[in-house]
């Protein structure tokens, strides 16, 4: 199928923006700019952008410790994301969260999470709220291949099924949990089949094909809006970098990484398609790359120049005090 040119360009740009963000932030982390390190999502852009491009901006997402790609694709300006990584006051969480705790609840981003599996539960809860209030929205919960071994994930999936919630569960399946290969820890080694066991439409899809991700998400969203309940999507993808910045490890070969990078890169694939279809010229593409680089450079500058949070605020916002005078 031929890709719509406007949509294709916007989608490609989003993926480039994420890639540049991650590679830039990775280097800055190595230089000590990102307290606590960060989880690089390079290689996984198509999952984030494919999903988000199928959603309405008002839809809700909740995600994991590896969430820069989801967050940027959801529409958070990269300078705000970068500032949060730097734990600056101008970051989305005022510097309280850093890389793992990006959020903008007002705008439907219910947060990254330090706890594996927690995002699916929170998204499921948001879907309860959406249904309860009769809104026409969906919630999307992201989880990793490692996260599907947490019990909380399946409790949430089951609850979504029985309440027919407008929820989409996306497994951002990059095949490793830290250094552990998915096959070694996943009974049955078929994550979509697990979903099916809980009675919801479940698919394993090519997470390196942004159009496939988009299409499955759109269908899931339509089912959800029609009151037909949740969908489970296991998107196969790959992360190019270590689990946390600077980590290498012997758990996978350089050949494996090179193979994914050279044959299945989501950006290369999609840009090649757009170019071959005439939806994009090589010159457009290069301009896009440059414009993205500039945007990220400005984001770094913004983050660098932003003030640190005021340490005198460490007790602010723990609770409202409205229950009674907190002492």
């Amino acid at each position, binding site marked *: 199928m031929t890709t719509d040119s406007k949509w294709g360009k916007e989608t490609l740009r989003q993926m480039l923006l994420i890639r540049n963000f991650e590679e830039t932030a990775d280097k800055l982390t190595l230089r000590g700019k990102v307290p606590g390190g960060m989880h690089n999502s390079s290689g996984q852009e198509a999952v984030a952008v494919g999903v988000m491009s199928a959603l309405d901006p008002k839809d*809700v997402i*909740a995600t994991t410790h590896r969430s820069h790609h989801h967050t940027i694709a959801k529409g958070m300006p990269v300078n705000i994301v970068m500032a949060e990584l730097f734990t600056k006051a101008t970051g989305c*969480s*005022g510097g*309280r*969260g850093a890389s793992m*705790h990006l*959020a903008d*609840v*007002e705008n439907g981003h*219910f*947060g990254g*999470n*330090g*706890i594996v599996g*927690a995002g699916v*539960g*929170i*998204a*499921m*809860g*948001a*879907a*309860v*709220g*959406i249904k*309860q*209030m009769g809104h026409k929205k969906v*919630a999307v919960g992201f989880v990793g291949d490692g996260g599907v071994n947490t*019990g*909380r994930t399946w*409790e*949430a999936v*089951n*609850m979504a099924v*029985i*309440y027919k919630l407008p929820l989409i569960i996306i497994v951002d399946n990059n095949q490793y949990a830290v250094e552990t290969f998915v096959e070694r820890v996943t009974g049955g080694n078929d994550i979509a089949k697990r979903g099916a066991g809980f009675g919801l439409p479940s698919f394993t899809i090519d997470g390196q094909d942004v159009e496939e991700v988009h299409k499955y998400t759109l269908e899931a969203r339509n089912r959800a809006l029609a009151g037909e309940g949740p969908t489970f999507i296991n998107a196969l993808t790959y992360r190019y970098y270590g689990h946390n910045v600077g980590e290498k490890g012997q758990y996978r070969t350089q050949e494996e990484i090179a193979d994914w990078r050279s044959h299945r890169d989501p950006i290369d694939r999609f840009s090649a398609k757009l170019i071959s279809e005439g939806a994009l010229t090589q010159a457009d593409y290069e301009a896009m790359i440059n414009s993205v680089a500039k945007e990220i450079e400005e984001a770094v500058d913004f983050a660098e120049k932003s003030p640190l949070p005021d340490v005198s605020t460490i007790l602010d*916002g*723990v*609770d*409202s005090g*409205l*229950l*009674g*005078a*907190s*002492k």
Partner: protein
Amino acid sequence: MSTTTPTTPTTQQNPTYSEAFQSGVREEMKLNPNIFILGTDLVERGGHFAQVKGIAQEFGVDRVKDSPISEAAMVAAGLGSAMYGCHPIIDLNFIDFSLGAMDEIINQAAKIRFMFNRPVPLVIRATSGVALGGAHHCNSLESLFAHTAGLSVAVPSRAYDVKGLIKTALRSPDPVIFLMHKKLSGVRGEIGDENTFIPFGSANKVKSGKDAAIISYGYTIVSAQKAAQNLAEQGIDVEIIDLRTLYPLDTDTINETVQKFGRVVVADEAPMFGSITAEIAATASEANFKHLKGPIIRVGAARAPLSANPQMSEAAIPSVNDLVEAVKKVMSY
């Protein structure tokens, strides 16, 4: 902050402690369409302690939802929908089952407001306290929750407080752990009207006295009242302070009480090592050291799981006599 309310005559007209919960919840549900209740066996049964009896029939099953046995998902459902704008009541049945949802409570619900500047108007209700049922149904976990920044903890001892506190909780944007004592479920008492709100962090002087004070909460208030009668016969007039909430804690009333008497007993039925009575005693001692006639004495349960055998379970928690002895000890300074 301390408000004294009349001791309640227990007439047949007065509702039970469980019915007081129903009453407060009903009133708030009428006003706020975003309140809903979610838990196991709520619709037909009305909950294991009749705490929501009839509410599904009145408000429909969209607002009283039967849940699978999935405590983590139950709390997550509450958390996510509270972030979205609802005001859910998650009914965990026994507080012991919260142990399956601790991440959702302690890592998520308690911290969202601080991290993301988003209110989490979530009530987690559960039955608590020592009674029958054995080791898995008698955990006193209140100190875990009170220790967690971001959570408030209600521990009402009578119908009036149940209703007044749940109404306050349902008007507030913060997560509340609402613990109702199993031995009090059927106890009748007066309740307030639709405008009676009890602020968290306001203790109730159950009985005033001249000689010494017992500071406590929950079912131990009943034992303290019996102890007070017994002590009165021995010429000792003891004051009883019911904290009603463990966080926020009414430190003003605690400080006044310590300063007034210098002889104070702090009591509950949790295993004493590391219980909330330690916080109260330590902080009150530090703040009011010069007023102390002797150390604050703590009374609590044995450091042991609870047994199903009723005699053993009773023996593990403070008796009326333990309270009497503790008061006599502070009187001996």
